[in-house]
């Protein structure tokens, strides 16, 4: 039996976004194990489908496909490292139609990867790095937002317990970073984490939603807002 994972997310997006008069159901299959994770619509009414594949080796590699509005495969990239798992965390299209992909990675000394493609699928650049933040080696990226002034904001969790945002330009340079929250510590030694960070852009603010531990040993969903520079906004 072929190793195939059906793309449910694709079904949703196409059914809803392309619901005017043409429905279709297509499989995008490398012949190995494939899984879809992210789906965005592009300015040309096409789509970027981001997922992971084991087409190169036994480890998951980030894999993206550009498809047109009829579901035809225009280009695709396997952008993973051999010998380690990685996968897309966020995909965005810039106003000049570049595609920016942020990825996690389990490769040695790498926690974060960024790849940029032009409209035709040519790799513009790829950057990977390993951040020692506040002395802690653990660094996980949880998303990305494109601000109106072209900066990119990524929420990250350091050492499972510190929520930070990093601000980038579109060539992958770090512009700034700020700590937003830390995980509470309780008597009894609970070793809890900040998890499931989502972020949303507003007219003049960014909303972060995440699990943290406020009052006891069960997680609470926390919502906070900042301006585009990371300054907290009170309710």
């Amino acid at each position: 039996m072929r190793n195939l994972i059906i793309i449910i997310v694709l079904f949703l997006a196409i059914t809803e976004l392309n619901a005017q008069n043409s429905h279709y159901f297509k499989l995008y299959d490398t012949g190995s194990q494939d899984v879809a994770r992210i789906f965005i619509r592009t300015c040309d009414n096409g789509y970027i489908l981001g997922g992971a594949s084991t087409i190169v080796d036994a480890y998951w590699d980030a894999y993206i496909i550009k498809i047109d509005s009829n579901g035809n495969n225009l280009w695709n990239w396997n952008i993973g490292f051999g010998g380690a798992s990685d996968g897309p965390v966020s995909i965005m299209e810039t106003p000049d139609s570049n595609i920016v992909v942020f990825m996690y990675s389990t490769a040695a000394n790498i926690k974060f990867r960024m790849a940029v493609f032009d409209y035709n699928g040519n790799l513009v650049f790829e950057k990977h790095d390993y951040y020692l933040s506040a002395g802690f080696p653990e660094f996980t990226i949880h998303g990305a937002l494109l601000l109106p002034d072209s900066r990119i904001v990524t929420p990250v969790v350091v050492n499972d317990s510190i929520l930070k945002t990093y601000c980038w330009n579109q060539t992958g340079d770090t512009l700034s970073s700020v700590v937003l929250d830390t995980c509470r510590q309780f008597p009894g030694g609970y070793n809890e984490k900040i998890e499931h960070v989502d972020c949303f852009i507003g007219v003049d603010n960014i909303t972060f939603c995440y699990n943290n531990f406020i009052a006891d040993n069960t997680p609470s969903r926390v919502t906070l807002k900042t301006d585009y520079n990371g300054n907290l906004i009170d309710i």
Partner: protein
Amino acid sequence: MDYARTIKGESNNYLFLDFAVNSSLINTCLYDWNIDSVITWIYYSSPAYNVLSSLGADFISEDTVLFCGSISNYSNMDKYAHLLKIDTASNVVGSKFTNLMVIMYQDFGQ
């Protein structure tokens, strides 16, 4: 897999999904930033299937949410794509699943 996530709705409403609570239940709450409170809880359990996942969700109107995920039974390895429309009062507007997309299920790690 853990599907905990947040979906942004109209204005300052946020829908918190937490699949980990119970695999037989879609369980969400709607939070209003303006009053810093949970407005309502939204639940769905299938009358025919006892394993539900919600891979994604989005508001399709101010008071209606479309969930996309899979549905199956403990006793059966087949999974079906599942689309669920439900309003914020937990009334099911529509629920569809299709055997067109039976998943040949594998444990793919993450």
